[in-house]
């Protein structure tokens, strides 16, 4: 058992355990906070895969942005007065069967396939190279992404602030 595998299993356990709490918890606030740890675990997996820039991005955008938005959503749409913060489930048994079949298929496929692998590159900071790629090979997707973000910003403001007609 070397350090790499210990760290991998720790972060995998954090990710899957927190993901399980997100999915199975009856209390939606618990789910939202467990999602925080799931994102942290995924960021650790990124570090393990030598994606340092993406790990930081994950922490800043997912934990700092998306998760805060989701918690806002939880707080704004629950009836606090009635303490009706429970979130119900429907079709538990059929869903479990489908998900078990799906997970079994995927894990079996990933287990048995022999993937094409290459020699591992040495550890190297990726931020500068990613920036270079974004402004050369990936310039068009980069610009389109900025337009998408602008449209999403304006659209979200429009939709959320629309006046209710009497």
């Amino acid at each position, binding site marked *: 058992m070397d350090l790499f595998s210990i760290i991998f299993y720790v972060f995998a356990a954090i990710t899957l355990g927190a993901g399980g709490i997100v999915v199975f918890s009856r209390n939606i606030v618990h789910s939202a906070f467990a999602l925080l740890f799931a994102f942290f675990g995924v960021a650790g997996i*990124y570090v393990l895969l030598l994606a340092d820039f993406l790990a930081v991005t994950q922490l800043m955008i997912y934990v700092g942005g*998306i998760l805060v938005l989701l918690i806002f959503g939880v707080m704004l749409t629950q009836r606090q007065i009635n303490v009706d913060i429970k979130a119900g489930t429907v079709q538990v048994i059929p*869903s479990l069967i489908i998900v078990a079949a799906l997970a079994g298929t995927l894990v079996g496929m*990933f287990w048995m396939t022999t993937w094409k692998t290459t020699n591992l590159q040495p550890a190297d900071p990726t931020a500068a190279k*990613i920036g270079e790629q974004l402004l050369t090979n990936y310039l068009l997707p980069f610009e389109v992404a900025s337009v998408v973000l602008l449209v999403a910003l304006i659209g979200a403001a429009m939709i959320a602030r629309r006046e209710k007609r009497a």
Partner: protein
Amino acid sequence: MEELLQWLKTPGLNHFLILSALLFSLGIYAILSRRNAIMVLMGIELILNAANINFIAFSRYSTGTLDGQIIAIFVIILAAAEVAIALAIVLNIYQTFNTVNVDEINQLKD
């Protein structure tokens, strides 16, 4: 049994892929079984994270280039845009129907 232990001791590409498959399944379960629209959104976030793990694992073990990481950045960007729009829609639904349970929202207009 011996092979399995040996396999468990040396994490490689398959281990990351199986982790992402399990995370993906958890997300699918949230989408299928939870009534609350925000829980469905959390399931989608789990699925996007699982996809990102796949991209980055392949970028590390299979190609050795940064292309997978750059696609993962675009996935994160789209996830941010998606969750902003989706929450705006959910807030609107809450104002109109006074609930966010997806099985009770069955009208296009009130």
